[in-house]
């Protein structure tokens, strides 16, 4: 194990920022801790366990422009008629022009580069997307890192089904330097979903804060390279012990509020259960839980255009949005609040696991912390993930 003395932290970040953009948790003017671009002088805030939002937007920004386009008009009044246009004019019997089918468009869709930030899909490998230079996310927690692993399944070309060039262009150049959790919150439940306050899934380098500095363990080749920084030294035995003790203490502090076994099957069995409605009563159907979540990945695609110039972009979407499953007919199969509510938990503990054999939750507890009415995912899984026979009774059923 290597060791970074406390005084070397700024030096490490400075060294990292020579080669990469470094993002680290820091306080905004209003005191909220968010991942921000680190610059010399930025105070990294590690005492607050979780940044307000998971760092997923470093790789999967909330708004991302796919392409820009513009319409070019061919106007016969000022330009010679194109052969295509000439063809559209149908000769009448007497030789006079009788009509031009108004349904035939004269417009050409031209994919145009908008400020260098809008590659076509074909171009993506060769084009520099914003934020696709080397990046280091410093100070994220093991649960945050697991969120990336869970999103990777979706965007990374699972079964050759879908490879998201934008996501991967960033993901490939992003190094995750996690800091193990020292004081887990009451909302933490990583252990219940197979994680750990010192977990290393998707982590490149794991730091553990102990007296005098950080114990450092490389998990990947990339992480190993960071350890080349001269500020690291070999950890002393008592430091290694302190790291192990910190890990153990944190492990202890995380509650395991539910058993995973059978959850998937029980969710399926309880799909139509009326208790979803009871649990959802408190829900205001906003999207806070999904937007602060390290693994929620849904998005939609929009076009916005002014005077023939437009952009196609994607934005985060979430299952509480009315447009999420809205059909063109106007029908929404998930019209009721409870149905939308059910989807979020079922997706995380049933649909996604069925597809990827992994959960879509890393137990960070942000959804509990930030929910305006403190809806508790643990309570939901505990209730709806239990066998029907064990469910608490409902008033009407008595």
């Amino acid at each position, binding site marked *: 194990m290597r060791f970074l003395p406390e005084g070397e932290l700024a030096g490490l970040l400075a060294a990292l920022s020579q080669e990469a953009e470094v993002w680290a948790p820091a306080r*905004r*003017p*209003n*005191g*909220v801790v*968010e991942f921000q671009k680190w610059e010399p002088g930025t105070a990294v805030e590690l*005492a*607050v*366990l979780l940044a*307000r*939002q998971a760092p997923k937007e470093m790789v999967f920004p*909330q*708004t991302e422009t796919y392409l820009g386009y513009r319409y070019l008009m061919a106007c016969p009044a000022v330009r010679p008629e194109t052969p295509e246009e000439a063809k559209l004019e149908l000769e009448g019997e007497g030789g006079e022009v009788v009509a031009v089918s108004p349904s035939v468009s004269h417009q050409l869709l031209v994919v145009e580069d908008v400020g260098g930030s809008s590659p076509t899909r074909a171009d993506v490998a060769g084009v520099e997307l914003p934020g696709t230079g080397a990046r280091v996310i410093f100070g994220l927690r093991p649960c945050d890192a697991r969120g990336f692993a869970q999103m990777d399944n979706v965007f990374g070309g699972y079964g050759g089904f879908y490879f998201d060039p934008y996501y991967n262009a960033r993901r490939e150049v992003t190094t995750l330097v996690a800091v193990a959790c020292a*004081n887990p*919150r*009451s*909302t933490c439940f990583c252990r219940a979903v197979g994680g750990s306050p010192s977990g290393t899934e998707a982590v490149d380098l794991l730091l553990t804060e102990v007296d005098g500095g950080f114990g450092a363990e490389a998990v990947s080749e990339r992480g190993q390279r960071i350890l080349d920084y001269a500020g690291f030294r070999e950890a002393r035995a008592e430091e290694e012990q302190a790291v192990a003790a910190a890990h153990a203490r944190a492990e202890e502090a995380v509650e395991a509020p539910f058993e995973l076994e059978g959850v998937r099957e029980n969710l399926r069995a309880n799909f139509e259960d009326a208790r979803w*409605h*009871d649990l*959802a*009563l*408190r829900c*205001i*159907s*906003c*999207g*806070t839980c*999904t*937007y*602060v979540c390290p693994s929620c990945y849904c998005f939609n695609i*929009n076009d*916005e255009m002014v005077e023939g110039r437009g952009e196609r*972009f994607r*934005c*985060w979407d979430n299952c*509480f*949005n*009315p*447009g999420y499953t809205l059909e063109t007919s106007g029908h*929404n199969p998930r*019209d*009721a*609040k*409870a149905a939308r509510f059910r989807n979020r938990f079922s997706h995380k503990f049933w649909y996604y696991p069925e597809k990827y054999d992994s959960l879509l939750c890393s137990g960070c507890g942000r959804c*509990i912390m*930030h929910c*305006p*009415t*403190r809806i*508790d995912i643990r*309570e939901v899984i505990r209730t709806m993930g239990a066998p029907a026979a064990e469910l608490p009774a*409902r*008033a009407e059923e008595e």
Partner: protein
Amino acid sequence: MSSTQDAIREAAKNALASGRVDYFIGWTQGHTPSEAIPAFIRRPEEVDRLIWSPLCHHNLVTFLKRKMPDPPESRIGVCVKGCDSRTLVALLQEGLVDRERLYVVGIPCAGVIDKRLVDALFTDEVTEIDFEGDLVTARTRMGESKEFALADVLLDQCGGCYSPNPRYADELVGDTLPESQGKPQFPGLEEFEALDSAAKDALLAEAFSTCIRCFACINVCPVCYCWDQCVNRSRRPALVGQKVDTKENTLFQMVHMFHVAGRCPSCGACDRACPVQIPLYLLHRKMNKELYEMLGFMAGMDVDEKPVFQTFRIDDVLGE
């Protein structure tokens, strides 16, 4: 305080036992004793879950809005504090809730805690808050503990509250509080008002740049009822762009603000729901101050009144 709590439980029990309501909305303890959360009680024997303390900040009128009751035709019992009741009055003014389906328990309120102020006193997670008279004790998960005066951690809107007593209720529990006389106060605006235009813009730009368009402010707002049809989501007309950036986020917030103009009594639910702590309350309170100065109007005071923008007076003294 505990007598008020008992009275709430009693009222809930009666309403449920008599079949007057299908469920009763009050507050209960959250997953730690540092927070209260909305509670939905269906059976008389569950009423002991209900609590009353300065932690009960949620405006439960939110859960009366259309699309919230489940099933939709439910008869509901609900607790309202003074400011909450004004949002209920605003809904009643427009006929947007059916008062026949409601049983409203009004609670005079001397102020609720701004949990964010308490959290800011600690680095660690606050998991316990106790009250003894005007003394508040907060403890963290790691055992750190501090004491302070209740007045220091009240929501700033609670100081100088113009309507501590419910403006509308079927039953009143607890003792009526003295009502403030004279002009309503709109505290906490001086600093903002003194900024120049560029500084105000900078403040708003910083605040709105962090907006994630989660709709918590809008969905939690008791007088915002368009739900799925919110024009902020609408693509036709495309009033607000769907890109999440400072400019569009600002317009997004303006839609909320101008749509509740004349109906928002500054309950502050939006401000407390915002996960990124945008000072929404600042703008809404400023708007309400302007409305008061403009037309002497305060939202949600009288069920028989009409919201200001749905009516007019020929002799309004406005403009040129």
